[in-house]
């Protein structure tokens, strides 16, 4: 159970991260808006609570590994890492610019604290599975770290995911935890129109995964699900996090058109106003 103070603190971090996402995208003039805002709570829960990591020692051998498969939502990863202390927050404004370590899609050569480079969809889960298998080869069932993988729901159209899902079920990698951003949108529209995924939980279950479905904006549910996933020994785990794309800024919420474009200056300022006043509940700075 999280205390009220813990929850309040996580909410504040998530709100700061959302503000940074809007600022980064306005400055970059391109990039994805809906996915990063929608996943801000999950990323906050991971980096400010659940992950075993050290921002001041990013190559710590025993750290958990976090693989971002849906590389296009990298603004939320960059913003979360900056707010968690991996690098100065002001550097976020270099997103997508020439020479920046914050490449448009993540490249670990430019930003070595990343576990993988990503962007081409469908290959992150396989890489996370490879990492989980490496620990299984070395440690058997007594692993000391977990391998997390963030996936988009639209990304599940890629067949390679199902190759990885099948192999992970076969290999019973209990140290692998996938988190699917179930926001129901992709570039061309709603997932269920473009390529229906439902019944998504049954699909994973039938490949012998441990499946949980949660509200991806409720910190107790997110953190509780991660704890339960860690306790599953002989199965890989998936957490299907139901999220609202564009969450936090009502005019961006649930709209597929906000999948792949940045806010204009005007839209961005309006969004920041909403975030800074917590939707009108407090007075902005």
């Amino acid at each position, binding site marked *: 159970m999280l205390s009220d103070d813990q929850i309040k603190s996580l909410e504040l971090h998530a709100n700061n991260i959302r503000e940074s996402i809007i600022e980064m995208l306005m400055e970059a003039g391109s990039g994805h808006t809906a996915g990063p805002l929608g996943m801000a709570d999950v990323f906050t829960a991971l980096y400010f609570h659940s992950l075993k990591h050290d921002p001041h020692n990013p190559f710590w051998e025993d750290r958990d590994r976090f693989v971002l498969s849906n590389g296009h939502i990298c603004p939320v990863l960059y913003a979360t890492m900056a707010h968690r202390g991996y690098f100065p927050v002001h550097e976020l404004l270099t997103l997508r610019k020439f020479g920046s370590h914050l490449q448009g899609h993540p490249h670990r050569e430019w930003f070595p604290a990343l576990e993988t480079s990503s962007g081409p969809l469908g290959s992150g889960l396989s890489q996370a599975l490879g990492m989980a298998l490496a620990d299984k080869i070395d440690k058997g069932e007594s692993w000391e770290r977990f391998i997390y993988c963030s996936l988009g729901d639209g990304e599940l159209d890629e067949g390679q995911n199902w*190759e*990885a899902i099948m*192999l992970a079920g076969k290999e019973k990698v209990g140290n692998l935890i996938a988190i699917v951003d179930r926001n129901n949108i992709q570039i061309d529209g709603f997932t269920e129109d473009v390529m229906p995924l439902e019944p998504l939980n049954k699909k994973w279950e039938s490949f012998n995964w441990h499946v949980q479905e949660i509200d991806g904006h409720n910190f107790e549910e997110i953190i509780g699900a991660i704890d339960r996933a860690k306790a599953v020994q002989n199965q890989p785990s998936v957490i299907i996090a139901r999220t609202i794309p564009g969450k936090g800024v009502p005019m961006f919420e649930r709209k597929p058109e906000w999948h792949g474009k940045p806010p204009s200056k005007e839209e961005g300022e309006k969004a920041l106003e909403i975030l800074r006043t917590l939707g009108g509940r407090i007075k902005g700075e």
Partner: protein
Amino acid sequence: MINKDQKINKRIFDKDCEQVPIRTGFGQGLLLAGEENEKVVGLCTDLTESTQMHLFRNKFPKRFIQMGIAEQNLASVASGLAAMGKIPFMTSYAMFSPGRNWEQIRTTICYNNVPVKIAGSHAGVSVGPDGGTHQAIEDIALTRVIPRMVVISPCDAIEARKATLEASRTKEPTYIRLAREKTPVITSEETPFEIGKAQVFFDSISRSDLDKEYQGLTLMKSGVTIIATGALVHKALVVAEEFRHKDVGVIVINLSTIKPLDEKTILENVKKTGRVVTVEEHQIAGGMGSAVSEFLAKTFPVPIEFVGVKDEFGQSGKPEELIKYYGMDEVAIKSAVQRVLVRD
């Protein structure tokens, strides 16, 4: 003359020269690599015996992962293993890996810069009866175009064994091209091998032959440098031996590492003849000959003839029938030599 320094098989021109599949050397090399380094792991896509990974699997079952028929997952799981410090060897048929999983190799292996070793077996038309779908004749082009990738195409089983063991000791993503059929054993245990080093296996040019001044360089009146890779190196040697009796000086280079290219050895030996024939069981477009000509075009432009597949797909047949039909046998190499000798 056979270059004695390279200590190649003395029975190379004998009719009953020993024949072993190149992939067999890979299997043996992987076993040695596994014994030498416990970080070596093997991944295969339901072709374990066929790619000769079964030797490794039998000895190190816990370090072997049966992937099922899933080449895309193969490449990215290997990448993940490598990110954790393993040295993964992944095998399939060359048509499917690096064929089907090219983008996963590019992004999750090379862009990520992890030391995954990719062995593509059954490359070339010499796969034979299986037909064109299974004959990878584009794999050199596919791999050499990716930054960081090292590309090795061994000429025989012994060289494949050495290349595999060497590859397990490097940090670079590496592609090793293997063939299915038995082919002549060209090298010996004593033949030196180094990744990135081309070898002169044959040189019938004597110093006194180097008598013609050309662009400030001494060139012999009638000579050619044959640059070959893979099992066809043997046919190149047979042709060189025939020309030796016809007053044509021939140098044969075994270019087993196609990338990085051994520019020094190529340049030194092309300067002696001023003419080149490249020989490979691969599409001419984008293959080893292309790599050689990209280099020579900017440093020492000379006439070049290319022996390889001419923008066609393969088909069913016996390996030798196909090598002949697609113009890669001794007759084709000889005719390429004759063509290049009369070019200005």
